[in-house]
């Protein structure tokens, strides 16, 4: 029998006697997992449709969606399931942005109030993430997601995007990361800070920090966190290793500036999933991600990436109506 498990309106079963995992319901969707797979079911044309993902891939994707508060636009867990943020409400969909599912009429979208879908996703993470598995880490850094339920890793899944008002390290703003260790793959990154030579009376008025040191100590992968704010222009650098756990389709243009090493991006049509381009970005490369694509990055070494967002609230409407072209630059 379904029951409320304590979190607001989250619908979950008792733990399965064999696997130890709960089954969750969110509207018409059902989420279950076993030793290897997460399974999502939904209704379409009077039938039940289903889709499976490897449990580790599913949990890494769900971790980002939760930590980012559903982010900007579409967060595709894979080519079938995902969420679309309407900033206060969120769509959960299956097959709605897959050309074959759409043509066959077996796709399904349902909209939820953000607190309900957020509470459900958090409850799934709390139940399905086992002791020793960190869904925010690269595979080489963490244990396995597989097997029957054993323990949990609440600390690992409670991390969120860092909210910075102006710049980290300023009084009353987000902190620097001197307390975090340098990541093993950034052991050669110089740790010196800028020299600040303030004239008497201007102590504290000048501000600088080592961004590369700050990034070398990031304890998570693929998690854009704000480091400078110029009105609605947000620098959100992050450290990347292995594969971006989602295929992100933005509801606006964003830009990437590769700060170190290399990332390769698979780019596909936002609506159909049809492949469009493969972009190799080396240190110093900067490129726009147009508003009509989805992208997924691959980084064989942990690398530093500057994600640059324009947080202006009315942008999705302006791109969707065609008022703004999907490409930022006309050459």
């Amino acid at each position, binding site marked *: 029998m379904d029951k409320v498990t304590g979190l607001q309106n989250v619908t979950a079963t008792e733990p399965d006697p064999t696997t130890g995992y709960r089954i969750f319901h969110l509207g018409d969707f059902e989420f279950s997992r076993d030793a290897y797979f997460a399974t999502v079911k939904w209704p379409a044309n009077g039938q039940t449709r289903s889709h499976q993902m490897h449990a580790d891939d599913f949990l890494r994707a769900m971790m980002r969606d939760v930590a980012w508060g559903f982010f900007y636009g579409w967060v595709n867990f894979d080519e079938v399931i995902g969420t679309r943020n309407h900033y206060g409400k969120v769509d959960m969909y299956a097959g709605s942005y897959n050309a074959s599912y759409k043509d066959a009429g077996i796709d399904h979208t349902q909209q939820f109030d953000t607190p309900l879908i957020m509470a459900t996703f958090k409850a799934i993470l709390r139940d399905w993430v086992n002791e020793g598995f960190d869904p925010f880490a690269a595979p080489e850094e963490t244990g396995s997601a597989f097997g029957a339920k054993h323990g949990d890793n609440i600390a690992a899944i409670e991390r969120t995007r860092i909210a910075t008002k*102006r*710049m980290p390290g300023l009084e009353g703003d987000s902190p620097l990361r001197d307390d975090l260790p340098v990541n*093993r*793959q950034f052991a050669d*990154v*110089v740790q010196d*800070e*800028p*020299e600040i*030579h*303030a*004239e008497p*009376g*201007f102590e504290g*008025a*000048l*501000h*600088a*920090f*080592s*961004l*590369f*040191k700050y990034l070398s100590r990031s304890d998570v992968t693929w998690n854009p966190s704000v*480091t*400078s704010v*110029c*009105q*609605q*222009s947000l*620098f959100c650098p992050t450290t990347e290793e292995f594969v971006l756990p989602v295929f992100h389709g933005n509801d*606006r*243009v964003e*830009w990437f*500036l*590769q*700060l*170190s*090493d*290399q990332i390769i991006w698979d780019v596909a049509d936002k609506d159909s999933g049809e492949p*469009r*381009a*493969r*972009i*190799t970005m*080396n*240190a*110093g*490369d*900067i*490129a*726009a991600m*147009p508003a009509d694509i989805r992208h997924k990055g691959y980084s064989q070494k942990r690398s530093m990436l500057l994600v*640059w*967002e*324009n947080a202006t609230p009315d942008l999705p409407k302006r791109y969707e109506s065609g008022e*703004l072209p999907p*490409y*930022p*630059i006309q*050459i």
Partner: protein
Amino acid sequence: MQQTWFGSLDNFRKGSIEIIKGKPEHYAMSNVFEVASRAQPYQKVVVGKNLKYVIETLRAEGSSPWFAASHDEFAVVLDGEIDVHFIKPSGGPLVDAKTEGTVRLDGQPAGQPMGYVRLRRGHQALLPTGAAYRFEAVTKGVLLVQTILGQCSVEKWAEICIQ
């Protein structure tokens, strides 16, 4: 371990675009070290533009003019060693609140020297609203500036982007 690879003015390797459908110019892709290597010192070349907001790349070499803005700006050093000197103007704001983007000043503004910050690769400085600033390259290098499109911004996409 594998070495962490940063680019520099004299050592960069531009990436590439493999197209399946569409055009390379949709991605407006350039390399900031290449752009800076071909630019005049402190020319503010726009390499990223999102409506009115921009990322500019500057070749830092010698001394820059004095600049100011009506809003915060930020600088990140990607190569070289660069000092940023600050002045607190004595006569109030140098830039009208309605003017966005970096404004180039004629000569040194009157005011109190606030001091300077010395930045090396990977260092970021706040260029706070209300202060005038000037770059001085100890060794030549490359700067990124986060700001708004302004009177000093130079757009030359056809020259810098992969097509």
